[in-house]
């Protein structure tokens, strides 16, 4: 990194941040509309999520101690930093710093901040929610990591933009979706777990533990949490897109791929019930992990799909 390029890089990072917020928040609204049509309803306006966030920011906030306030800031800061490192089409804010493991570690800062803040609110349901969220994380991280390590092993690089560039060499046929379909299925199931979509909605469970970690949030803190939620969806879907769908070379490709992944996940969520937490772990450690190991063996030992 050359030092006199730093201001420009930070500006690019902020632009990516702004784009991520407006894109994902609009898309969340559009997805709510699509889901509503799926229920034979009319649905809200596409900019409903902006209204919700602004409304929350204009309300009064109650504090439950400094751990609670600091945790929200730490979570939002960690997630925003992760977004700034994300390659977006041809733009990378910090070239050479888009290694896959950077996202894994930076993303954990956000998740831990969230956990700290929720437990700091002192509500037992928040504690249960955080415990479930972290347990679920242990569930989906292992199969997801096995698939991603197989990809890294196969392609010989762990840079996200290079992985995307490798997949863009020969059009659709060089996507990992085509080359490693079994691993893609496993990773997509893990993506559902990351997004907290319905079979794996256990840590939110509004009817059971009153929305889990969010139980004591209101007003401004909940607004920040909503923004954080939009950013984390952006990170998760972008990671999946870059790893399996060949990234995005142009805005149209980006929009189509991103929407396809997110809308599909949301629609699956609408057709599912909710697992209990022990069922989540048992499921992740049976089917996705078996698929992931099968794919890893095919890639690493048999050399298929590289």
């Amino acid at each position: 990194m050359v030092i006199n390029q730093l201001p420009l890089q930070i500006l690019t990072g902020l632009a990516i941040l702004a784009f991520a917020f407006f894109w994902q928040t609009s898309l969340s609204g559009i997805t709510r509309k699509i889901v509503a049509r799926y229920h034979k309803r009319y649905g809200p306006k596409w900019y409903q999520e902006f209204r919700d966030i602004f409304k929350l920011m204009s309300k009064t906030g109650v504090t439950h101690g400094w751990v609670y306030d600091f945790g929200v800031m730490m979570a939002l800061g960690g997630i925003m930093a992760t977004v700034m490192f994300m390659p977006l089409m041809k733009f990378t804010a910090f070239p050479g710093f888009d290694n896959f493991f950077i996202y894994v570690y930076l993303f954990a800062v956000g998740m831990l901040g969230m956990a700290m803040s929720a437990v700091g609110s002192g509500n037992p349901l928040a504690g249960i929610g955080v415990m479930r969220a972290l347990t679920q994380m242990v569930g989906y991280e292992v199969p997801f990591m096995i698939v991603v390590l197989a990809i890294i092993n196969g392609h010989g690089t762990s840079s996200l933009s290079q992985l995307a560039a490798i997949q863009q060499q020969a059009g659709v046929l060089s996507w990992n979706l085509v080359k490693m379909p079994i691993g893609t299925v496993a990773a997509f199931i893990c993506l559902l777990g990351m997004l907290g979509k319905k079979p794996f909605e256990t840590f939110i469970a509004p009817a059971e533990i009153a929305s889990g970690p969010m139980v004591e949030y209101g007003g401004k803190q909940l607004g920040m949490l909503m923004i954080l939620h939009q950013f984390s969806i952006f990170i998760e879907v972008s990671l999946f897109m870059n790893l399996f769908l060949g990234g995005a070379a142009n805005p149209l490709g980006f929009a189509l791929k991103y929407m396809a992944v997110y809308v599909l996940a949301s629609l699956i969520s609408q057709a599912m019930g909710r697992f209990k937490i022990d069922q989540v772990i048992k499921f992740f450690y049976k089917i996705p992990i078996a698929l992931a190991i099968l794919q890893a063996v095919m890639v690493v030992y048999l050399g298929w799909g590289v």
Partner: protein
Amino acid sequence: MATADKEKKLKEGWEGISRFFRANSLWMLMYCTGCCAIELPQAMTSRYDMERLGMGPMATPRQADVLLVTGYLSVKTLRRVIYAYEQMSTPKYIVAFGPCTINGGIYHDAATVIKSLDQYLPIDVYIAGCMPKPEAVMNGFQDLIDMIKDKTADGWKRYRDNYDWYKQNQIESLGELRIKDEYHE
């Protein structure tokens, strides 16, 4: 003087924008111990689709903007409603369903049921009917949205300004306001 004027104008402008967003994003806390609650599923699902007004159910009082009190409240449940209402962050609104919240309705001669809810909590909108049809429910919510837009939904301000009066009424009916905290005792 000029700067004070400017500040006032700025604040009013900000309030105007905030009101627009608040009116179109109402999150509900449903205190559904009364029978009028049975009319809410129709209003929420595909027949009347409350979500097109930007409304949605929320899990806890902290997250919610509107408290729906669907029908009668006994002395025991009133205490919980007051607790839930005081946990909500301002601005907050109450929508009361049916005649039970106005004068006790069919429970007008019951010893354990409170008769007039607005003695204890400030009500913004009453919805008539026993039970109100989903059309009436949707109409009530539309009224609430219009009231928020033209600044007349000020129940939370009335509660803040007349807090002593409300508190006195609450204590007269309930004896004490404390709820046993099962988690920390």
